[in-house]
């Protein structure tokens, strides 16, 4: 619909018309519910996650208001406890991961030169489940039934006898529900990146952002089952009187912590890793060169993803287990710093050898480096058992993980928003607004969280709804609360900037930054089919590479135009040798229906309407059976021996 209607050389007008005919979805209400376009789904992920971010952020503002002064009565303890739990849970599960999945959804097919994800309908299903699970969890708050046990929900406080009501049932079921979305999304990313890369994009030419998303997806596949096990056992304990976490019945409360952190620590990297990928994707455009040390950054991504599974006990350093068993985890937690160090210095080298173009995305990347490095120091400190035992569960750890998560996820997300907004919307943002937003967010972030290191060291435990004034924590808390308002103001400016760009921004053109990866060779916003010609990749920076560019213009061939039907190209796993052109599915209501039936299932479980839940299970099975039912074909076509 935009700039590329002038036919590029190498592809005929008829081909473009046919591609449009096969890929375009009509602008109708029906199409809104049935779409399988990864770009629309990616946008929805971004918008929905941003919505949950606002809710979780407002929770934080209310909490900071309560904590601004000692012994203030803005919130009751019960309200405060629900808010801090929802703040953490939503930021982790409903904002960070889905937001980055949103970027992944929009960008991975574009970056690898494909026309969609490997399983477009599964992709749509994943989005609907995410939306429903998020609403399911937030809906509990107005009823005063929101989870109230902290985002890691330790046993036995999560048990029925210590925590009656629906609070922790909402937690367990909500996260199980959401897990379906995250897992299906992760599998989709892995298969997409393995099979749908443009010909020539062997593993050593895959963009670092895609590496990061795939590593994240692998972590999800192997980490999430631990959380799901935990929550399933919790639900059984609460509703069906099993004894997994009940010492009275022979159970063990530390089992919860082990399972939770086997998930929970990889999850930290599940959140941060795509953020690091965004940094590697943003830098080439603003340093005017490729990122230094590509194999080393790939190494860092792979090593971090694996080692992250073996550090979980450092969250349990105060539980009184044998010091020797702590030390195995202490060793891994110490060494995991090294791949992060490699990445940081590779980026610094990139900046020192490149030419810096100081626009908003680069500002946020610089903010990322400053913040993430500081969070990294405290992270390495936590690897040492003796030090950890002193500061864990104090505000020092609150400071640490906000530095890591705001530094490692929020700053890159904001950099990504400004960087890809022209690609997603076709419009340029207002640079001045972006700079103001950066300085407010950066200042607000450090003013809010830096003092927390100090009053943590001064003995303030986390998760207290109030504190007495004679303990030396007053000044720090007040500064933090002021900072949180500055931070909120900065984030409001980001939102205003995005709305302004969509309403008033000037058209961006396909490649406003002269970026290096393939998304910049598509239109802004991309056509429904992404690429008129699937490129043939010859280097790590395909958009800067003349041979690759040529393969989509004068060098275009029929087998990469694929205008007969809705198709994309499958290539081999490691070296991306072309295998076959495969048909892609049409829009469908089934993903929405299946997600809806699952919502009924989880709501029925929550409310104890078990017969309804059983009926919903049957409906789920029926929907999946219908979804995958093979189309009937003539015997010759399917290959029946006569």
């Amino acid at each position, binding site marked *: 619909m935009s700039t590329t209607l002038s036919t590029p050389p190498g592809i005929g007008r008829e081909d473009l018309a046919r591609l449009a005919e096969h890929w375009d979805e009509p602008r109708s209400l029906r199409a809104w519910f049935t779409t399988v376009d990864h770009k629309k789904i990616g946008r929805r992920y971004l918008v929905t996650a941003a919505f949950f971010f606002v809710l979780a952020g407002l929770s934080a503002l209310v909490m900071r208001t309560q904590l601004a002064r000692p012994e203030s009565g803005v919130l009751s303890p019960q309200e405060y406890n629900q808010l801090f739990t929802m703040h953490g849970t939503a930021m982790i599960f409903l904002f960070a991961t889905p937001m980055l999945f949103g970027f992944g959804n929009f960008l991975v097919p574009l970056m690898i030169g494909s026309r969609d994800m490997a399983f477009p309908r599964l992709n749509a299903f994943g989005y609907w489940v995410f939306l429903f699970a998020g609403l399911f969890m937030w809906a509990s708050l107005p009823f005063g039934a929101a989870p109230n046990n902290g985002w890691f929900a330790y046993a036995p406080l999560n048990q029925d006898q210590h925590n009656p009501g629906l609070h922790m049932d909402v937690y367990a079921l909500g996260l199980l529900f959401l897990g379906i979305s995250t897992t299906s999304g992760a599998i989709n990313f892995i298969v997409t990146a393995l099979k749908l890369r443009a010909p020539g994009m062997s593993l050593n030419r895959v963009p670092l952002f895609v590496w990061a998303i795939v590593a994240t997806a692998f972590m999800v596949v192997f980490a999430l089952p631990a959380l799901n096990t935990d929550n399933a056992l919790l639900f059984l304990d609460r509703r069906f009187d099993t004894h997994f976490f009940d010492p009275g019945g022979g159970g063990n409360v530390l089992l919860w912590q082990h399972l939770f952190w086997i998930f929970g620590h990889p999850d930290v990297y599940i959140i941060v890793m795509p953020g690091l990928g965004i940094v590697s994707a943003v830098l080439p455009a603003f340093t005017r060169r490729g990122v230094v040390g590509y194999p080393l950054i790939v190494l860092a991504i792979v090593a971090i993803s694996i080692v992250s599974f073996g550090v979980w006990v450092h969250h349990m350093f105060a539980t009184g287990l044998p010091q020797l068993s702590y030390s195995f985890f202490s060793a891994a937690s110490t060494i995991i710093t090294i791949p992060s160090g490699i990445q940081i210095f590779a980026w610094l080298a990139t900046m020192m050898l490149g030419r810096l173009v100081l626009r908003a995305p680069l500002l946020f990347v610089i903010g990322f480096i400053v913040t993430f490095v500081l969070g990294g120091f405290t992270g390495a400190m936590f690897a040492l058992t003796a030090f950890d035992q002193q500061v864990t569960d104090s505000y020092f750890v609150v400071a640490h993980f906000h530095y890591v998560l705001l530094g490692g996820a929020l700053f890159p997300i904001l950099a990504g928003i400004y960087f890809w907004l022209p690609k997603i919307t076709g419009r340029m943002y207002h640079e001045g607004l972006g700079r103001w937003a950066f300085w407010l967010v950066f200042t607000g972030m450090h003013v809010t969280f830096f003092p927390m290191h100090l009053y943590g060291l001064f003995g303030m435990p986390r998760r207290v709804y109030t504190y007495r004034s004679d303990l030396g924590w007053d000044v720090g808390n007040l500064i933090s609360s002021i900072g949180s308002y500055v931070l909120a103001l900065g984030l409001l400016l980001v939102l205003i900037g995005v709305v302004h760009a969509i309403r008033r921004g000037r058209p961006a053109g396909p490649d406003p930054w002269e970026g290096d990866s393939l998304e910049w060779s598509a239109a802004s916003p991309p056509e429904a089919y992404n690429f008129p010609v699937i490129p043939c990749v010859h280097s790590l920076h395909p958009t800067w590479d003349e041979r690759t560019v040529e393969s989509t213009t004068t060098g275009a061939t029929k087998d990469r135009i694929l205008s007969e039907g809705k198709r994309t190209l499958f290539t081999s796993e490691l070296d991306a040798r072309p295998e076959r052109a495969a048909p892609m599915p049409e829009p469908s209501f089934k993903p929405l229906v299946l997600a809806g039936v699952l919502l009924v299932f989880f709501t029925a479980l929550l409310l104890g309407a078990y017969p309804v839940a059983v009926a919903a299970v049957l409906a789920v099975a029926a929907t999946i059976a219908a979804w995958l039912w093979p189309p009937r074909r003539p015997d010759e*076509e399917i290959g029946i*021996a006569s």
Partner: protein
Amino acid sequence: MTDRGGVVAAATGVEALTTEEPVGRPTGWWGMVMFVATEATLFACLLGSYFYLRFQHGPSWPPEGIDKPKLLIPLVMTGVLVPSSLPVVWAEHGIRRGQPWRLRAGLAATLVMGLSFMALLVIEYQDDLQHFTMTTNVYGSLFYVITGFHGLHVSVGLMMIGWLLAASLRGGSFGSHRHERVRNAAIYWHFVDTVWVAILFTIYLSPRL
């Protein structure tokens, strides 16, 4: 020996070391393998929890008042479930050659074996429930939740097999060119079988060690 040396040299030569492996798998295969990987991790977590709770529990396991699990029915269950993978393999090979009758016969055999397994599980439960339930203590919780969760997976596998059978009986679904769904369901069924061996060891054999 020289021949052997030649093999080693060939396998460590640059050509062999740059061989693309894995290669040429369809998207559905990867999707199912990844799904099975995440499910296997789920079972690993459950079985890990079993051993964690068992060794934290104290010397007597199962706890006082509960006998060590009897082996007869579980061994028969094993004898029914593990070989049930063979007809699936046979069926899959058949449809690759374009022989729907082999697909149907193989799937039907597996269906019967899987249903027998489920029936045996019910008999086993009826016996056990007279001695202890899910709420008796943590041993009961582990026993029923792990075997029940596996039973659930067998049911899902059976639904897949039944679904394949139904689609195949309709005709026009599978043939030598189109059998991806058969292969994916087969992978799942093999997984369900393999997990049972781990469960047999954990739940039924390990308390006797």
